[in-house]
């Protein structure tokens, strides 16, 4: 079957994962680390990587795998194996559906603290700001099925800024997988983890809401009775302020006299109804003639449109992965069979 290069390009690595959008899809994909090729770097530095698609049948590349061409220690000799070979490193993940599941973490969670914010102990290779789908949690059962944005990421753990977990039982086990930042359509629904009782309620979400919503947008609340603040259920409010550091939004709803918002107890799982969410509900277009402040004209955020483009190739970051280490220049090519 003849091959055609459908697209190609180059980027300078920042040491983290990179998404390559592939409008024509791909049957074969390769990267070259142009920076490391002429050097004699430490053992395991990947200079070339290859991925084979489903058309290769039994020879297709597994998720988060691929063939890696790596230098041996301080000499120019090449070793070839797969990313899954010991010592394993992250490779390619071809994503063609939404919600997009990126590289699968093989190491399960070992602990989730019931602190504010919650801290997760987890050996992994995730990056700052990644969004993880949590499932199969033990102890902190209430968050199974939710997704969270992670911060303060190290190789052994990360923080869930969007989860104040003081009233929850600590998690003792669980699993995660990385999902795309955006769902198939944007703006999307978000998980609510906290609502204050105030003249203008402050709503905390599990991810940074400023990536999805904008001041002036209306949001519609779905708060099951198990979360306490039933008065907020099915209300629609307008966002008046947002905070990217704390993952919060202020809305023009007076919740002073409402019941207290609280996650259902772990002991009530799995019978407690989940989850508390907000969904986009348009905007009321306004223009203040004195301040010239306009709302309702931000077509980047409030208009419904495609979210995460698919298909794309996720290249894991790092010296031993396809997207390379910081400052490495990476060339990539996507190929497609002609038939």
């Amino acid at each position, binding site marked *: 079957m003849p091959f055609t290069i459908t697209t190609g390009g180059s980027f300078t690595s920042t040491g983290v994962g990179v998404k390559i959008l592939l409008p024509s899809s791909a049957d074969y994909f390769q990267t070259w680390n142009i920076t490391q090729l002429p050097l004699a770097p430490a053992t395991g530095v990947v200079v070339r990587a290859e991925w084979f698609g489903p058309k290769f049948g039994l020879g297709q590349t597994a998720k988060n795998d691929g063939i890696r061409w790596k230098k041996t220690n301080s000499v120019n000799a090449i070793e070839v194996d797969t990313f899954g070979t010991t010592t394993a490193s992250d490779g390619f993940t071809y994503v063609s559906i*939404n*919600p997009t*599941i990126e590289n699968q973490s093989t190491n399960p969670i070992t602990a989730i603290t019931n602190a504010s914010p919650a801290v997760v102990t987890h050996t992994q290779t995730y990056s700052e700001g990644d969004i993880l*789908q949590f*499932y*199969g*949690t033990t102890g902190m*059962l209430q968050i*199974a*099925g939710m997704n969270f944005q992670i911060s303060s990421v190290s190789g052994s753990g990360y923080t869930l800024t969007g989860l104040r977990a003081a009233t929850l039982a600590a998690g003792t086990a669980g*699993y995660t997988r990385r999902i795309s930042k955006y*769902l*198939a*359509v*944007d*703006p*999307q*629904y978000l998980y609510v983890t906290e609502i204050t009782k105030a003249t203008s309620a402050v709503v905390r979400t599990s991810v940074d809401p400023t990536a999805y919503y904008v001041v002036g947008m*209306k949001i*519609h609340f*779905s708060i*099951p009775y198990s979360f306490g603040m039933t008065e907020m259920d*099915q209300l*629609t409010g307008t966002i008046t302020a947002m905070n990217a550091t704390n993952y919060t939004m202020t809305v023009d709803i007076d919740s002073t006299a409402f019941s207290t918002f609280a996650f259902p107890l772990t002991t009530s*799982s*799995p*019978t*407690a*109804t*989940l*989850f508390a*969410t*907000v*969904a*986009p*509900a*348009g*905007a*009321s*277009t306004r223009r203040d003639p004195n301040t010239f402040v306009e709302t*309702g004209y931000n*077509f980047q955020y*409030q*208009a*419904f*449109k*495609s*979210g995460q483009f698919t298909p794309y190739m996720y290249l894991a970051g790092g010296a031993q992965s396809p997207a390379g280490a910081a400052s490495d220049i990476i060339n990539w090519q996507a190929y497609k069979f002609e038939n």
Partner: protein
Amino acid sequence: MSFPTGITNINNMAPELPVQAAEDLLSTPQFNLIHSFGVDLHHAETYIGKTTRMSRFERLSTDGGQLDGSGIDPASEVPVRTDIDATMEIYAKSIVTNEQVVLFQNSKTLTKFTALLGQWLREKEDLLMRDLFSSSVSYINCTGGINGDQPSNITLNNVNNIESILLGNDARTMLTDIEAENKFGTSGVRDSFIALFNTNMTADIQNVQGVLLKKDYPSQAGLRPEDYAQISRFRFFVSSKAAKIPNISMLGRTVYTIPMYGLEAAAKIEQNNYTAVIGYRPPWVVSSVGQNSQLYAKFAIARAITNQNWISGLNVTTIQPT
């Protein structure tokens, strides 16, 4: 040289051509298209941008209003308008065919491939609308099922809860009732909201308390083939491509999302003059030696949830892991 003798049969006189084509093509598989027929259809004009705005006036407050005879006018109210925006996007697919396909092997490929592209148009549109429902709507986990998971398998109470939410938000039903008739085993079907579910859930749907399967409707006239059952105030429509998210339940099972909605909850906007374009590029255009021709199909679509009050839904798992 020796000459064989005996009876001439199909063993020593095999046919020159071992196969023949049947008189007609077999059916191309097509999944049920359920995600568009319950939504409003709008049209975007050309030359005025790619964002379509749909606007709705919210109702006025019914508080107060009584004149007390003092001559003081009641405070006037400023109507509130909610604007819903949707961005137009274009999708396309093509098939390039070499002349030798027609010359040596296949006849009427243009007709056959045009039909395939037409099917792609409808299927792609359906999946885009499915993605809208799965991304931009709040769903509530089913609880109280027997599989011990979170969300659980679907139960009548969960369905009734969604009906309560929609009715509480003054949503209008989508489908009219089917009056009862004097037929054994049937009963009347209430006017209904719409629910869309995945084929992997059919066994669970049949087990929900109070389910009325399609065969038990008093009349089959005018029913869509995708119509599966009535539960409470919802008519459930089935598709193999309805939304699911693998392995994210508390027990790691696949979670299925069931959008449930009434009138004017969502919209599909078509671009005038670009609704469904199917075209042909002849060989002298596609190929320098005139050997390849091309068929293409493309369409423009924008989509939006137009009223979150009138749409909700359930996250469910199945009794038997799928």
